[in-house]
């Protein structure tokens, strides 16, 4: 068991000089990031920028070639299982077991995290909090929409009481109403003390919800931004759109 690095206590996620390759294909080259607690942080980038790979490294599912990732003061490479206990992950293609009901899925995933006998009231509270309709709780999740599945997995994060929520392309496949509902939900989670890190290529979503974000291109952080508001917003948006075009056209 490694000691928590107290110098990183105010930072939730600290990424230093991170490199990663799939075989000979380099995906991340020297990524440096610092994500503060309580933030909704977005990692923007086009296809193949390395966003999802970065999330998987943060989860300890991939080992970086060089560099380090600390989550909540713990080095991911050395404490992958302990880190996973502190992170809830919502993938882009969010999936649940279709033959189980929403409640059964929730209980199962909780059991996998080590909570074998969760309090029913806390589960119901989590499901209420994410806005999954009560009628759906005991229905087989084979009939769930992507939005419902997302809510279910986010409810898991609440039930697990993890300090960090990672979302991979959360708004892909959602209609505008569902996206707006998701954003409201993420804000409410933030108010409950959760930090959110999301990777996305949805520029509008980022400007709407993120407290801070970075732009990742070809495995490198091109630029970091704080929340777009006030007088600077127009200029920042223009800059972002320019970066985005560069990425798409590259």
């Amino acid at each position: 068991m490694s000691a928590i690095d107290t110098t990183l206590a105010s930072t939730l996620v600290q990424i230093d000089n991170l490199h990663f390759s799939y075989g000979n294909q380099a995906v991340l080259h020297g990524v440096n990031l610092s994500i503060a607690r309580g933030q909704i942080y977005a990692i923007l980038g086009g296809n193949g920028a390395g966003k999802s790979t970065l999330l998987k490294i943060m989860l300890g599912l991939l080992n970086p070639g060089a560099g380090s990732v600390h989550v909540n003061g713990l080095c991911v490479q050395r404490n992958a299982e302990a880190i996973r206990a502190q992170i809830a992950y919502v993938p882009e293609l969010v999936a649940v077991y279709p033959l189980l009901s929403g409640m059964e899925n929730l209980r199962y995933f909780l059991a996998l995290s080590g909570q074998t006998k969760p309090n029913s009231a806390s589960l119901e509270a989590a499901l209420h909090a994410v806005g999954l309709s009560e009628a759906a709780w005991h229905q087989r999740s084979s009939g769930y929409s992507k939005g419902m599945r997302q809510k279910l997995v986010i409810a898991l994060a609440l039930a697990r009481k993890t300090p960090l929520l990672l979302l991979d392309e959360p708004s892909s496949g959602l209609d505008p109403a569902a996206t707006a509902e998701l954003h409201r939900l993420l804000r409410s989670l933030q108010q409950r003390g959760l930090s959110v890190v999301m990777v996305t290529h949805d520029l509008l979503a980022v400007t709407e919800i993120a407290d801070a974000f970075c732009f990742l291109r070809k495995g490198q952080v091109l630029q970091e931004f704080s929340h777009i508001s006030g007088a600077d917003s127009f200029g920042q948006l223009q800059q972002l759109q320019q970066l985005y075009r560069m990425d798409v056209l590259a």
Partner: protein
Amino acid sequence: MRRSVITAIVYTQWQRWLRDRAVLSLAVCMSVLLLCSVWLSVQHARSQAEQRTVMQAAAQADWDAQPDRHPHRVVHFGDFVYKPVQFFAGFDPGVELYAGSSVYLEGHRQNSANFSEASQSSSLQQFGALSPAFVLQTLLPLLLIFLGFSSISQEREAGLLTQLLASGAASTELIVGQFLALLSAALIALIPLVALVLYAWVGSAADALRGAVLLLGYAAYASICAAIITCVASQVRSTHAALMACLTLWVFACVAGPRLASQSASAAFAAPNWVEIEVAAETKLKQIGDSHDPNDPYFAEFKRRTLAEHGVARVEDLPFNYGGLLMQEGERMTAEVFNTLNTELQAQFAAQNQRVRNVAWLNPMMALSALSMSAAGTDYAHHAHFLRATEVRRFAMIQALNKIHTEHTTFVSDKDQRVSASFWQKTPRPAYQAPGIGIAQPILLQSALILLVWLALALGLLRWAANRLARG
């Protein structure tokens, strides 16, 4: 590894199976098939046992009903021995379907075992028997494939695997949980065998021992199958690829492999059929000597020696019937020739069986098949014991009758004489005692060792698969 997590994985997997109509239909079909096979096989074995008991009693009654007659008539009247049916023959008929169930014992020749079920059935027998052993050896792995091919591979395909790992489940827990879920399904299929073993326990300790060996063998095989399927399913990228890989392994292990091994063994160690052995015996006997030819050098010398031994000039002056003595000598020679040819035949069979058992190092199904037949008492070792025992009985009986012929009849007017029927009662005809499981000890030990090595390999593969899964 956390026990609570593994329990949750096993429980949830069962929940999913029980809600999947395709899986349920398959499981119901398999259960019906297994129960039918147990019921039909046990009934069939029971009826065979009853039939053989009745036939053995009838043979005894026919023997006892013989009147006063010439002993050589009794030699040709002959005797029948029926092979007793082993308790687990219904579970695994082994070679019983193809090997004969009775032997006709008579003078001057050794007969092969006759009236095998295959020889008395229509061409439907070509499909083989639906025995519980066949269902467990061949169809159970198929059921396990359909239950397990999608475990982990489906999760990977649906994107659930990352979520499972991100939820805090260790890859080892996921693999072991899926393996135990599959193993539990396999062990349920062994319940009929457990019931048979318990029933055997009540009847005889020897049968209970056979049952325990069977149970351990099948449990090891089920574990090997479950581990390999889990391993394959966890490593391939899609459910389709997992299914194809598992089915390919099944075809090689359960369908093509055993047939290929047995045919190559038959080709490598060709064995003559019984007709060829009889022709060879006749040829050899003619070469040694003809007791009916007065000029035959061997029998001329035998006669000279006998007369010299008793100090007489003519066979009529001997204190016994020379004709009976000739029969004894002829029988000794015939038996010797047949025994030599039979030993060569058995050596070929042993070489074939050994070749197949050696190939079983590559195929746990073949090792289980050998263990199953041996433990059930239906393998070739048990059949060969029956053949050897019947030959011992035949030779003792025929020579006893030839001795009566020699001592209680005279050379002059030999064929017109009769001896008392009470002699037939005293003729040695010991009842056949089936051997214990120990007769198949080398086969059992080799098969058990192969299964243990495979089990260790399969569990090692699981560990490797878990490590690989953890690395993404």
